[in-house]
């Protein structure tokens, strides 16, 4: 049971690394505990946002970051190459994004805004609704979309908005069931015509919860437009169909490219030798060998890092050194949250883990929230760093495989 590369973790960073390696012809085996956190993601790509909307490219702010921040370690050209590859790849998978150079303010279901570098196609932003008369649609008995909060938020921002309650296809009421019922809809035109007929006169734009299909959203929104209904989507509370669309598209492509998933598995042990990782074992001590390894298991929140009772953080999969100056102190909530994110594995510019001034393994590369010195929540940079480091780890692993 040998592979070129073993990836631990199937979050966005792990999926990006897997796909990049597979498309270059390497064999890849992925171990993951459960479904990825993309199931809770709003769907757009967040790159960096110190504050608010801006026409400035968000990466202009990189220079102000900690020199050990993943973006700075990789360097901007790498980050830009990674993003270009990602948007191109997603486009081919039917997941289109709309990067426009700066951050736009995407609407959240709570009626707030989130600075977003690349909203998914048809994702509602403040700019798109500002000058329009808007109807906020919700589905009967669906609990994961607080339309009232969204309406309040819009009205506060000076947008003229009214609510409209609709029946979901097949009368469904759970997010994913609604999305799948939309995918199965036999006569979408009639459905959207029915919605159009119920709209208050003068409504120009309907904001739907992002449930218009798990796969067919582009076609469905096109059908609605054909009936004179301009639709945009606002992500729901978790489980978030908008994030799942990306997860499903990447996972499907990985499967089709001969990638192997081991789901529900926590890597239980590892074998090292000669400054390298040789293989890992699962919960029943099955041994899996590979030439290179990518650790994409997530930070404390995803269970990739563990916090001991004394507030010290451990990396359990490969027992890597964690850069931490002081124990996490749960009583200092604000600082602890920032520290929780920033505490992680320290790496060199090839994303190899560092300890005592040198790298610990020749063939191990670390990505995403397992890395220290960044804060996905505080910087609104989660997807950006995941894509960039996933791509960079794949490149580093490829260079290692070619050289060895």
């Amino acid at each position, binding site marked *: 049971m040998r592979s070129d590369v073993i990836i631990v973790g199937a979050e966005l960073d792990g999926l990006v690394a897997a796909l990049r390696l597979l498309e270059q012809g390497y064999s890849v085996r992925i171990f993951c505990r459960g*479904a990825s956190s993309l199931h809770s993601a709003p769907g757009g790509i967040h790159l960096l946002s110190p504050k608010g909307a801006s026409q400035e490219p968000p990466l202009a702010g990189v220079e102000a970051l900690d020199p050990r921040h993943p973006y700075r370690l990789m360097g901007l050209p790498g980050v830009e190459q990674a993003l270009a590859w990602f948007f191109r790849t997603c486009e081919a998978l039917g997941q289109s994004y709309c990067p426009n150079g700066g951050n736009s303010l995407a609407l959240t279901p709570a009626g707030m805004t989130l600075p977003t570098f690349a909203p998914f196609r048809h994702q509602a932003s403040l700019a798109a609704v500002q000058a329009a008369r808007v109807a906020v649609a919700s589905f009967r008995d669906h609990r994961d979309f607080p339309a009232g909060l969204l309406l309040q938020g819009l009205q506060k921002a000076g947008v003229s908005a009214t609510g409209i309650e609709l029946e979901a296809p097949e009368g469904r009421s759970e997010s994913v069931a609604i999305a799948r019922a939309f995918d199965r809809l036999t006569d979408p035109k009639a459905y959207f015509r029915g919605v159009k007929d119920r709209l208050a006169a003068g409504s120009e734009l309907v904001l739907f919860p992002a449930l218009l299909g798990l796969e067919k959203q582009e076609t469905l929104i096109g059908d609605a437009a054909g009936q004179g209904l301009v639709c945009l989507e606002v992500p729901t509370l978790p489980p978030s169909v908008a994030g799942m669309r990306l997860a499903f598209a990447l996972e499907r492509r990985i499967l089709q490219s001969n990638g192997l998933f081991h789901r529900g598995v926590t890597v239980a042990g590892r074998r090292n030798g000669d400054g390298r990782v040789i293989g890992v074992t699962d919960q029943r001590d099955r041994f899996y060998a590979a030439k290179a390894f990518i650790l994409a298991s997530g930070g404390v929140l995803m269970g990739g890092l563990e916090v001991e009772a004394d507030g010290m953080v451990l990396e359990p999969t490969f027992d890597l050194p964690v850069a931490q100056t002081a124990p996490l102190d749960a009583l200092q909530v604000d600082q602890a949250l920032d520290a929780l994110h920033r505490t992680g594995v320290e790496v060199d510019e090839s994303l190899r883990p560092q300890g005592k001034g040198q790298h610990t393994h020749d063939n191990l590369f670390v990505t995403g929230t397992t890395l220290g010195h960044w804060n996905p929540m505080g910087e609104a940079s989660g997807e950006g760093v995941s894509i960039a480091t996933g791509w960079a780890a794949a490149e580093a692993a490829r260079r290692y495989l070619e050289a060895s």
Partner: protein
Amino acid sequence: MSGAVKVLESMDRCTKCGICQAHCPVATATEAFPGPKYTGPQGQRFRVIEQFTETSPMLCSGCGICTSVCPNDVKISDIIAFAKAAMLADGAKLPLGQKVMNRPEGVGRIAAVAPTLANGLLGNRALRGLAEAFLGLHRDAPLPRFHGGRFRRWLARHQQPDGPVVSYFTGCAIEHYDPFVGIAAVRVLNSLGLRVSAPTKACCALPMLSSGEWGAARGRAEALVASLAGAERPIVSTSTSCSLTLREKYATYLSMTEGAAAEVADAIVDICEFLLAAHSDALEASLTALPLRVLYHGPCQLRGHAMGQPALELLRLIPELALEVSEASCCGIAGTYGYDKDKHAIAMAVGDTLFKQINRGSPDVVVTDSETCRWHTEQATQVPCRHPVELLAASIDGNFEAWRSERS
């Protein structure tokens, strides 16, 4: 720690993220089932505190997808299985047909007396209508044909190599319905120089465990463990659901964690898992071209093993096999779930993703590791469904035409 405590304590890790709801094939198919989050960890709190009873656990198919996608290792489907067993212990009734299906070895023994007559009866539409009315067994549910005794008769005459011995736990499917898989398994193992012994005909009692008849299951589980206790190691299985039962469910549901039960749990291995881990090089060297278009579907019970998809890795070793991978997590039948007249429609709706993919790609053959998945999928799509070892055997022989006609 007892199995029950381990399972029920895991619900404290639930963060209500809803990922299990999003992936539950039954909840996606029908509003009648509130979904694993509600029926599992959320409902369990009320069962403990208020003797809360509602019947949604009975609608769970036990496929275990929820547990496999949970990011926090909550044993969701096991929580629901405990709730189901508690309901039966409290006097809830199972349909008679489920009780009959829970005793496949008994049915098989009776039918073995006159298999032609039994198969004739099963194929009779009027009788299937009666069975639906009186047993609750849906008239279109995929009943296999009886081939009782055929595997044993073949094995008794079959010349085997004198190599190391591997035990083969056949289970009801091989003993009574699907001897061809057993024959293929023996031929593949023989080709590696291994000698096969099949120490018992007993049933693992999985249908009882998944429908909540745990009291009746215990005696069968203990008898099976006793009959396998002295068997040569490893003990291979061609059914991912039977092997999962021996490996984990006896310990979790019946607290059989000591002595022979623990030893057997440790010795049992899925045949593809075994071939891949111990013999993939030798096997690869003996495989010849099999120019077929194949769709591989990893059944839901395979996910319960949390070992990836060893059959898929083996199939990739076969030269000239054009392989497509199923995008569905479950075919819907989930063991014996879809046989119930009230659940058959749900099973068909769950299977829709798989059936559509099969109809789109129109493969020559669908390959999957679990027996009822094969029967259900073959009936729904009319595409032949086979076990991975049947393709390996055909590839070793280099003769897929013979393999095609073997069953007729």
